[in-house]
């Protein structure tokens, strides 16, 4: 039945804008737990997230390596220090007692610091990478609103 043909009593009782607002409120008020996902799914999503994260770190390592290899105009031996991350890593997730953040995700990888020595004095420039130090890095992420927050 078209709205125009509703009895006046109904129109006044079920005020249409109010009804619309009520429906909208109910839809938007759907609690997040209704959309909750299981642990296996969370782990799979974290695998995907970690791969993307490690790829970003790899891009950073390549950029650092590239910048360290740049030679200034002045002659002489150059020492540049730079850091690289990964590429190998361990990942795991941990379930915790929190409604808003039910899981934490961990990525653990090595950070390596190098010194690049460039001696451009000869015919062929001599480039030497020296490992100065290496230590572990653990990154902790949270799973909030069904997504990994960084």
């Amino acid at each position, binding site marked *: 039945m078209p709205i125009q043909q509703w009895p006046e009593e109904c129109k006044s009782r079920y*005020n249409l804008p109010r009804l619309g607002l009520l429906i909208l409120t109910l839809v938007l008020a759907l609690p997040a737990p209704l959309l909750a996902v299981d642990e296996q799914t969370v782990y799979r999503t974290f695998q995907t997230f970690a791969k993307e994260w490690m790829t970003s770190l790899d891009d950073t390592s390549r950029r650092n390596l590239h910048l360290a290899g740049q030679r200034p105009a002045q002659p002489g031996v150059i020492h540049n220090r730079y850091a690289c991350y990964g590429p190998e890593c361990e990942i795991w997730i941990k*379930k915790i007692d929190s409604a808003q953040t039910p899981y934490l995700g961990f990525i653990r990888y090595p950070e390596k610091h*190098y010194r690049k020595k460039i001696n451009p004095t000869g015919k062929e420039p001599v480039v030497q*990478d020296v490992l100065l130090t290496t230590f572990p890095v653990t990154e902790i992420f949270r799973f909030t609103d069904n997504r990994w927050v960084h």
Partner: protein
Amino acid sequence: MNGVWKSIVWGGVTIFILSGCATMSARQRSIWEGATMGAIIGGGGGAVLGNHDDDRSDRDKGALVGIVAGGIIGGFLGAMQEPTEKQIVVEPAPMVEPEVAKLAPQPTRKPYKVKVIQTPETAPPSAPAQVETATTLPSIAVVKERIVLRGINFYFDKSEIKPEFTPVLDEAARILNQRSDLREVIIEGHTCWVGTDKYNQGLSQRRADAVRAYLVRKGVRAKRLTTIGYGESRPLADNNTWKGRRMNRRVEFKVMGE
């Protein structure tokens, strides 16, 4: 005030009050606020467009369509909105160290699963020709380990850490309490380059101080922890890209040793 406008105003007020619910996450709050604004604007616009004659039903229909459409569009826009760097204000560090004995350590949980993955189609940088021995380096404090906390979030204009971030801090406190070998820890605050240098430096210092205060409340000895706010001065990645900026926004622990 006629019925339509009353409905719009009261509906908007109701949703706006609900949008301030303390239990809502940032994302839910953002959706609510977007929906509220959308419903009010859409409802008003719909009522005006439907008010071409004196037929109240047209006006009501217009308002209804406007409210629903505006609410949905506003909700989507709100959902898409990311919290910005500027929405981070932190609490000052307390000066008094709490008694450690009062805080029971959290039970240890085994990780759910451990798996080694390789970054796709990438390789480590060129193999080093040699490893420099310790004798060639001066005996100064060096970094032994880094722990990076991601997804940091604080209330806007309040000195309170958002509840969704506290599990990350609780985990950090658990690690520090369990591992007595992590004696000297520097808490560093870092931002991306969005904002002024001065603002970012202050912001990162307040972040680091807030994290320290929280950890001390969780039983980590205050003497082990020092804070430094680096602002945008020590980026990990390229600030010109979105991916780089997200990597640069962080709080990290540097575990020092000799």
